[in-house]
């Protein structure tokens, strides 16, 4: 069996490793940024941009471009240097952990160790109409040459599509006694994805699903850390392949049965 993936072994204590942004010379702290101020372009506006960048903590600020982005708006490109130092050594990021099996190995292990098909249901929820992400995980075609869960003989995958209310998704999952529920959230303006995900978790708790069925969240602005904070079992961001998801689900189901994951 292949070793668990997920980057560094987080039980090891790492040595301190101070780092800074790097442009021309190591340790120079060089950064670039751009922004708009709601004032007409002028010498005063440019000075305001410089002070604003200083306020952000930059030194040696260079306002390299000031453009009139409208009568009452000016757009700036700014370079500067920052003294900020980050200790890379102490950084820990939760990562989805599971054995890395090929689709064939996943099917074999389900057949041998679970002896029944794994049932999952997914949807893009709320008023969000983006289906490409959840389709990439669930549908035959899959993503980047990696087949979707529908194609796994030992998975039974249901894709409810988009704009699905949270309670409709949950009801379906309860009726089918699903092993996992997959929630996709793509629109993130004013944090609507968080709001909707929180509502999903509240509903899942109310209906006693939370802690029983695996709850997975995915989308372009989702990561494992955010998903855990919101109360999901795992989070998946851009570039996720269906086999990553299959691996996670099977890993957890085996873990629950006390079988070696």
């Amino acid at each position, binding site marked *: 069996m292949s070793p668990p993936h997920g980057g560094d072994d987080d039980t090891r204590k790492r040595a301190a490793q101070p780092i800074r942004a790097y442009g021309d010379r190591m340790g120079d702290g060089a950064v670039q940024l*751009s*922004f*708009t101020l709601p004032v007409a372009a002028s010498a005063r506006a440019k000075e305001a941009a410089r002070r604003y960048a200083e306020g952000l903590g930059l030194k040696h600020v260079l306002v390299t471009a000031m*453009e*009139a*982005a*409208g*009568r*009452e*708006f000016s*757009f700036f490109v700014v370079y500067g240097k920052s003294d900020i130092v980050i200790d890379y050594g102490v950084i820990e990021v939760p990562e989805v952990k599971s054995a890395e099996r090929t689709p064939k190995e996943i099917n074999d292990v389900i057949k041998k160790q679970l002896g029944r098909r794994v049932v999952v249901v997914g949807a893009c929820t*709320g*008023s*969000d*109409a983006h*289906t*490409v992400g959840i*389709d990439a995980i669930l549908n035959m075609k899959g993503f980047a040459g990696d087949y979707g869960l529908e194609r796994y003989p030992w998975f039974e995958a249901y894709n409810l*599509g*988009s*704009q699905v209310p949270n309670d409709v998704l949950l009801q379906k999952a309860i009726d089918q006694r699903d092993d996992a529920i997959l929630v996709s959230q793509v*629109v*993130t*303006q*004013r944090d*609507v994805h968080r709001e909707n995900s929180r509502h999903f978790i509240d509903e899942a708790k109310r209906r006693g699903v939370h802690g029983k069925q695996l709850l997975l969240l995915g989308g*372009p602005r989702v990561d494992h850390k955010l998903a855990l904070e919101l109360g999901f079992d795992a989070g998946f961001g*851009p570039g996720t392949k269906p086999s990553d998801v299959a691996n996670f689900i099977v890993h957890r189901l085996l873990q629950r049965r006390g079988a070696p994951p």
Partner: protein
Amino acid sequence: MEALPIDPAVVAECRALAARVADGVGRFIQAHSTVSIERTVLRAYGAHGADPDGVPLVNTCVARLQAAGQLGLGAAHALGRELLRGAATIQEAAEALAYGAPPEPPGPGDNLETIRRALAPYTAEALAVIDRSREHREADRERLGTGPTPLKYVIVATGNIYDDADQARAAAQAGADIIAVIRSTAQSLIDYVPIGATTEGYGGTWATQENFRIVRAALDDEQERLGRYLQQVNYSSGLCMPEIAYLAAVERLDMLLNDAMYGILFRDINPRRTLCDQYFSRRVIARAGIVINTGEDNYLTTADAVEAAHTVVASQFINEAFAHAAGLPDELMGLGHAFEIDKGLEDSFLLEIAQAQLVRQLFPKHPIKWMPATKHKTGDIFLAHRVDGLYDLVGVATGQSIELLGMMTEAIHNPYLHDRFVAIKGADYVFRAARHLGDELRWNPDGLVVRRAREVLASAHALLRETVEEGLWSAIARGVFADVKRPETGGRGLEGVFARAPEYLNPVLEALEETP
């Protein structure tokens, strides 16, 4: 640009096939109406306002008629009867239908002709309102003039209409010609048009009559300062497609996203509902002189742009046929297509040119709408900005009419003020630098571009032939367009479709159908 050597006979056949596709569902459309069409009729007659819960009067009217089993006659029938029974105004008649005693079925004296006569002055006024708005718009456009093509089209979508208005102005000052306010998520699925100014949308801003006015007022003011006519766009799509078309017509909008199939494929709206609604809305749009924007570019977000290029062309022919059937001239058809090929492919740029030029040639009089890369953009804004440069180059070289400018932050958020500024500045540069590039280039007759254009046209032709054979309902159900499958009786809004009774009355539609 030099014309691509494609067979005009194949093109003519595509048109004829598409007309048959549209014809195949034409009888269904003519025999049915929908709740949203009837609400539009009431609006056109002047019924307005809402109850204290915000439910529009026209919704309550239509819901009540439907519950009473009388909607098959048309809302105009009931409204006319109320007038005959003594209602002094349209508003009074509509309020009686909505809030009065349960609607009574027609009596012996209620023959079609008397009802039609009672409505006649209001029918004339309904059309006159649309005509006056059109004249107003055309006079402004004539007086101020528009910029050179490709016209620069940008989107604002803050969720707050007042921010939208400020950002629209800033975009115009930076050089944009056309401003689209895109709608909040969920709006396409709600079966009423909200009322008033709104500040709380997600992914866009609610389309309301008041919001239309706020943006138009900002552009009216701004265009005088700039000495250049500014165009306003919104969405006539979703469950309220006809009502929005009407509101846009009276508020002088210039363009409307309006597609015969988009709502079916991308919002799971029932196919019957959408095809009926698109017909009525396009009748209004034709009378108002609004340019439609069709949504074929979207197919390439769910299907692959190389494999599915022909579905875009086939759908453009179908959209054109539906639009013709609803009285729209070519000059009002902004057929959509896009620069959506995987940026990892070698020679993707050549394939893009082939498609852009092919569409330009197939639809010569149409103000076609060229759409930027979206799906193959990531958070790497620098690469995205370069992609947009190539896109602008194809746009100007192939003579696209309208260009929706690409945003370098496409994969991140709804455009910020400076995202638009950067895009406009970049497009201005490319358009200026390559203004006459198209005049200088000749096709290699055996080259990739010519081969590709012919191939796409041939596949579109084959697909149209198949669609004629199986019928549009079945093609949509089979997932021919955008890889999305939608059965004829699935999706949202089917309960709002009803058969017109033999005595069905809709003088507004009759008048629109008489429009030359």
